[in-house]
């Protein structure tokens, strides 16, 4: 071995090994993002081929566009409620999965089923169950039949339910990974001290689970904020735009109206919201790391 030369060679080979992946990431992620920002500064209608630089005009229009604000509101509401419900369901599910009982393997495998089903398929499946005339949900529920996907106020909550069904398992797995990192001795000691189950949960499980919970919160809220598939298939943003999220509004502007300038501005705005959300979460997470 030739000391320094060998290290030098190792570094060169390292760059060669990562180069293809880096190039692809630049090509499919970095460049498109920058290009979207550039496009958002133009008036650009695809079919007319008209394209001219207009500076921040699109963003000025965006700030006065009530449809943008309502889409932002819908997205934020969807994210907040869906992620809260998912965490509230995932913790008991994870505690259950962490316990030894016959059939645990079966439960673990089956909670992954909704996760594996394509979102579009799960939206279709729920749309059938939500069907106002012969959907199973109206049949099971007492009282008058409800047009779940056609009535403002109901539709967004129906979409939240679909998201909860699909992604709670993933959150539960993250929480489970956190649970398995808690040393069993802590519980043994607490039991010797005569602590109740609830007390152990409050004083041991929950505090030690906090990093895992915050991480799940970060991942899930960024994911929920970009929701497209489920809502597009369930309602296409209707009724009366009450389920229109930022991604759906941007998609419609881009692909249905062919307005690439304003559509890009909406995409960039969605991107910026996600960046801000991520920055806030990472700050909270960072503080958590420090205080531990």
């Amino acid at each position, binding site marked *: *071995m030739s000391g320094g030369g060998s290290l030098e060679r190792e*570094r060169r*080979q390292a760059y060669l*090994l*990562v180069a*293809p*992946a880096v190039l*692809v*990431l630049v090509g*499919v*992620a970095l*460049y*498109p993002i920058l*290009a*979207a920002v550039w*496009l958002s500064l133009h008036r650009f209608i695809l079919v007319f081929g008209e394209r001219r630089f207009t500076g921040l005009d699109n963003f000025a229009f965006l700030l006065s566009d009530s449809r943008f604000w309502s889409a932002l509101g819908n997205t934020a509401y969807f994210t907040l409620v869906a992620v809260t419900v998912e965490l509230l369901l995932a913790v*008991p*599910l994870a505690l*259950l999965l962490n316990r030894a*009982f*016959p059939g645990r393997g079966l*439960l673990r*495998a*089956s*909670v*992954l*089923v*909704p*996760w*594996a*089903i*394509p979102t*579009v*398929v799960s939206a*279709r*499946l*729920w749309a*059938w*169950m939500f*069907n106002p005339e*012969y959907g199973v949900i109206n*049949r099971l529920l007492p009282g008058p039949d409800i047009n779940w996907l056609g009535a403002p106020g109901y539709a967004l909550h129906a979409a939240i339910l679909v998201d909860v*069904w699909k992604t709670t398992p993933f959150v539960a*797995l993250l929480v489970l*990974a956190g649970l398995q990192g808690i040393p069993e001795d802590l519980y043994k000691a607490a039991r010797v001290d005569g602590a109740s189950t609830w007390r152990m949960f409050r004083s041991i499980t929950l505090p030690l689970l906090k990093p895992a919970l915050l991480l799940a919160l970060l*991942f899930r809220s960024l994911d929920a904020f*970009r929701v*497209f598939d489920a809502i597009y298939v369930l309602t296409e943003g209707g009724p009366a735009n009450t389920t229109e999220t930022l*991604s759906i509004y*941007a*998609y419609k502007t*881009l*692909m249905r109206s062919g307005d*690439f300038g304003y*559509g890009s501005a909406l*995409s960039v705005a*969605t*991107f910026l919201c*996600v960046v801000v959300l*991520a920055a806030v979460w990472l700050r909270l997470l960072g503080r958590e790391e420090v205080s531990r």
Partner: protein
Amino acid sequence: MKRPGLGTALAVVAFLTFFLGPFFWQVLTSLWPDGELTRPWPSHLTLESYASVLWGRPFLRVVANSLLVAALTTAFCLTMGAAAAFALAKLEFRGRGLLLSAALAVSMFPPIATVSPLYLILRAAGLRDSLIGLALPYATFALPLTLWVLTSFFRQLPDELYRAARVDGCTPFQAFRRVLLPLAAPGLATTAILVFIFAWNEFLYALTFLSTPEKRTVPVAISLFASEYREPWGEIAAASVVATLPLVVLTVLFQRRIVSGLTAGAVKE
């Protein structure tokens, strides 16, 4: 194992019903005779919906399209990802942390943010409405996933293996090819499953970049199933079961691997 208490049993039943109930309802709908969907219960079960989906529509073609795109994406990302993940896990070079953080950041992009430029790029390259062209933007999300999961797998392999191979005269690349890559086979399999499922399920890009009906992928085809006058629920259900069953089987069989992959990708260290 302890005998479960009543509370545990009830909770298990409740969760199982919530997570599996809708899937079973879908399977039942797919077997429900077409004229009877308005009735609360089918009089008998039939495979009619499957027959009309598989032979009355170009659905097998659509399944083949999805298989092609998902296989291409998996092969593409694993080839590049394995090399990069090995370097990230075992070699010393500047920018390692930056590259991993960048990959993580990219996986959090809202896909809509890249749609307009990717559309223009694919159009200019003559790859719009092409299945091969579709596999390329799939790398936006599949490659970061590959990097994260595989890097954590390579990290789990002892450094001594790499050092021993180097002492025996291997170059870093030879150590990767001959020693570490074969040992990372379980990690590669896990990553392949995750990437495949991801690509099979992807909707927004497929909806945006493909326009010819014969080129659609499964999620797009299912989303556009509705006919003008009535929604063919039985056929939709049958198509959904066909599109989902392989994934459900895959998930149940490889449950442990999928879980370790998902948590390795998400919970670092």
